[in-house]
């Protein structure tokens, strides 16, 4: 769904050649636009504040103002921004909001609107690289391929769309307390400074790797024949599913994954034993090369 979203920038212009907006209108228009998912930039006379950074991509910009003369034509020197100007002098707050929606429609700029049906809630892990030791526990744990590695084999969040909304489980797997979910309610997962007792608590992890159908993580580390044969036995789909159910119950009891998230998990959509094996092989390759 994120492919349907296109940046669209609104500018409230109160600088040279335009009048200041009515106080109440300025606040209500800005707040409403933000709550609908728009980005809003306010420009005043005080443009010492303005320093421009190069724009990497093209997107439409709508400049709203109570212009002293006709709304000026504005062009972007880089040729990347498609700028539209509109005079708002005769419009009330509702009229301005309608105007913004109309221009956005004309520009075909899809918006991710908070609270709307089908909106994508941004829920995904953020790695604190000051703490991360690149141990790959998160990669091996996540069933939904949220994590991957870059060319330098450094862990990174690659598929944040795949992350299960409100599930902070991987942050509890990280031995370094390096994984944050900024929208989580409590610390240190929400980004609060990490305390010593947080680190101590995280070292008492449940055996979550068994969720992948066996202790794959350590079996890959040792690459013992015994572990390999145990893994191959678990390739029976029924057995793997039962095993996963058992582990999910354990996780639920441990409080690591919220009950409502577990309730939403469709076990049949969890990775098949083949996918688990593919992931395990990828891990083995990574660990062998590092």
């Amino acid at each position: 769904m994120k492919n349907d979203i296109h940046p669209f920038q609104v500018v409230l212009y109160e600088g040279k050649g335009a009048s200041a907006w009515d106080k109440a209108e300025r606040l209500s228009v800005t707040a409403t636009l933000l709550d609908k998912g728009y980005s809003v930039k306010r420009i005043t006379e005080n443009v010492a504040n303005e320093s421009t950074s190069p724009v990497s991509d093209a997107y439409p910009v709508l400049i709203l103002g109570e212009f002293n003369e006709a709304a000026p034509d504005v062009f972007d020197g880089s040729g990347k921004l498609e700028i539209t100007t509109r005079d708002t002098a005769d419009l009330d707050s509702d009229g301005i909001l309608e105007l913004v929606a109309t221009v956005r429609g004309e520009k075909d700029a899809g918006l991710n609107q908070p609270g709307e049906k089908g909106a994508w809630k941004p829920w995904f892990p953020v790695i604190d690289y000051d703490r991360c030791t690149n141990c790959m526990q998160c990669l091996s744990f996540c069933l939904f391929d949220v994590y991957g590695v870059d060319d330098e084999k450094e862990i990174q969040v690659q598929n944040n769309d795949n992350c299960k909304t409100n599930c902070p489980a991987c942050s509890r797997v990280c031995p370094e307390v390096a994984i944050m979910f900024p929208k989580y309610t409590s610390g240190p997962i929400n980004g609060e400074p990490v305390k010593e007792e947080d680190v101590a608590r995280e070292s008492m992890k449940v055996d979550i790797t068994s969720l992948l159908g066996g202790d794959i993580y350590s079996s890959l580390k040792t690459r013992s024949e015994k572990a390999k044969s145990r893994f191959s036995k678990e390739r029976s789909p029924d057995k793997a599913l039962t095993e996963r159910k058992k582990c999910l119950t354990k996780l639920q009891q441990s409080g690591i994954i919220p009950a409502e998230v577990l309730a939403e998990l469709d076990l049949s959509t969890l990775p098949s034993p083949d996918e688990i094996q593919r992931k395990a092989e990828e891990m083995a390759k990574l660990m062998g090369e590092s």
Partner: protein
Amino acid sequence: MSDTPSKILYCRCAFAKVVPDGVKTEVLDGLCESGKSFESVADLCEMAARKDPRIQTLLDESGTTRIAACYPRAVKWLFHQAEAPFPSDDQVEVINMREEKAPDILEKLLKS
């Protein structure tokens, strides 16, 4: 960091209720009243996840930026993940609307 920020950024956190409503409204009100230019975004997390190209323009590469959002550690690494890392920690001040009171946040954002 220098006392005169070249940029002020406000995050509305529109997809979650983690920043108290009263605080974010009072801060936005104060910014609107201030007569200063500022940038505001619906939800930095959402923009970072999409790697929205505008995120590259939110920080001042050569000057300073003050950001009203949430925990500094989260915001710093969110920008990093969106391939728009802080130019240096000294150049960016993150003010936490989850923990601080609106008058204190405004004072930090607007001081010159």
